[in-house]
């Protein structure tokens, strides 16, 4: 059991000017343990960057509490100097090139590894002497990725770090991340909506949708937590009756139904007898299905309690409406 380094309770954020629209974060609670790679997954605008901003005291919460390394991070250098968070839209001083940015990072991050930074810059073919404001989107992302990795901060956040990077550069990032993490274990929070690409890196997954947490579990247990049953529609219906259906697809007489839960050996044998095919559900499919299901339930039942969320929290949802 590793030590808890982040504790978030009832975190709520309303952005000014959003009127009486939905809050960016709506009573979010979770915790993060040391020396693991976390995935903070969700659609664009789900609240991922907002959470990371508040955790690093770059942004402010409307309500709720945040503890990082046991303390409030706001204006707290003893917490802040153990954290690195380069935003997806990170700004740099007007006249800085990548070399300048790395020199600055070397000043502030105690564990900064300059040779690693240089190696990564070479991997990403980053022009070190070109002004940052003249770099392409991918090169700009690369500057952030290099700072994030070479800082070796105890708690490192990557905010959609791959924007504009091509497939090769993205793979390089994932490889280097794993390599360096293996050698220097630390806590990494990776926000992403390219779930399939990062699924293998993640040890723990937190999924956020419309400002609420809809999944928070070990990547390992999530991988086996749902199963797709395919075959003759009528038989599929019989087999899946009474189970929590996450998704349903039909192709004429055939159907594929994704259900929650782990099947026992007996149930697997029964499925085989019925001529049904059982397929594991990828993390991405699982997240997509759960997210869509949440949205549909939310829209259909006029404020009826939403189902299928791991947290449940029906009462709180009712209270906030």
């Amino acid at each position, binding site marked *: 059991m590793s030590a808890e380094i982040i504790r978030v309770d009832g975190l709520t954020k309303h952005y000014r000017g959003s009127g009486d629209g939905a809050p960016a974060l709506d009573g979010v609670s979770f915790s993060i343990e040391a020396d693991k790679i976390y995935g903070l997954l969700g659609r664009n605008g789900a609240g991922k960057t907002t959470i990371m901003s508040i955790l690093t*005291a770059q942004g402010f919460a409307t309500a709720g509490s945040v503890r990082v390394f046991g303390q409030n991070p706001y204006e707290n250098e003893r917490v*802040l100097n153990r954290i690195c968070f*380069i935003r997806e839209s*990170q*700004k740099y001083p007007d006249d800085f090139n990548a070399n300048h940015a790395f020199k600055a990072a070397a*000043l502030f991050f105690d564990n900064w590894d300059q040779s690693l930074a240089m190696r990564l810059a070479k991997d990403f073919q980053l022009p070190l002497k070109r002004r940052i404001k003249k770099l392409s989107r991918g090169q700009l992302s690369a500057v952030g990725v290099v700072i994030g990795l070479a800082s070796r*901060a105890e708690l490192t956040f990557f905010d959609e770090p791959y924007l504009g990077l091509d497939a090769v550069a993205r793979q390089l990032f994932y490889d280097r991340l794993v390599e360096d993490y293996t050698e220097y274990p630390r806590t990494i929070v990776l926000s992403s909506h390219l779930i399939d690409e990062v699924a293998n890196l993640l040890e723990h997954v937190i999924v956020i949708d419309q400002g609420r947490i809809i999944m928070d579990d070990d990547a390992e247990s999530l991988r086996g937590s749902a199963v797709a049953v395919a075959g003759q529609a009528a038989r599929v219906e019989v087999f899946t009756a009474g189970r929590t259906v996450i998704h349903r697809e039909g192709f004429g007489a055939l159907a594929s139904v994704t259900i929650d839960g782990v099947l026992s050996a007996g149930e697997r044998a029964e499925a085989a007898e019925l001529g049904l095919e059982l397929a594991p559900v990828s993390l991405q499919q699982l997240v997509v299905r759960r997210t869509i299901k949440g949205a549909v339930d939310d829209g259909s039942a006029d404020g009826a309690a939403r189902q299928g969320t791991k947290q449940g929290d029906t009462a709180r949802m009712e209270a906030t409406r």
Partner: protein
Amino acid sequence: MSWAVDNRAVKVARMQLINKWTFLGIPAIILTGSFLLSLAVFAVIPVPDAPKYSGAGQAVMWYFFALGIQSLTLTFPFSQGMSVSRRSFFLGTVGLFAVVALVVSGLYVLLGMAEVATKGWGMNGRMFALQWIADSGVGVQFLFYFALMMLLFILGFWFATVYKRWGATGMLVLWLAVGVLLVGLVALVTWQDWWAPVGTWLAAQGPLGITGWSLLFTALLGGGAYLTLRRATP
């Protein structure tokens, strides 16, 4: 605690100096360039006796106003990415600027002395030793330049902070408020027929008094800028 914090403030100052051009190179070029240009203009004007005034000495000060704005709009968000607290960013940035302002003020005083000694660079030019200020002692001149530069920098810094925190609306409200305040003051003085005493009072302040007041005003603005920055987001 203070050691750790101040140490990071010093690092902020060092960060601002990573690109030497911003705080050192460009001011040096502006200063040299405007100085040489003014000399050229003095040489061209064919009146040897009357003093020729040049406002070129201000050029660097306006650059510092722009620098105050830029430090905040771009360097502040970057410093947040470097996990620097707002307090360290403020102390490091304003501290570094104060040091630069001290150096430039010293330079202005020296240049003013050279100007007097060479009778306006041999051409009766007036750029640094403006009559009103040059009659005061060296100390007052020095303080006056320092106060002026700090005022401009903090002004730019605070306006940028307001913009960062409250956007265009905040900026508009701020300008309106400043306008209303100024018009209100003028109206008050006019209705009360206070112009004569106000004039006398201003004249009585002299360079030292004006310097003192602008330092006080700068300190107030600096405090305001810090409090605004405390809740600003990158």
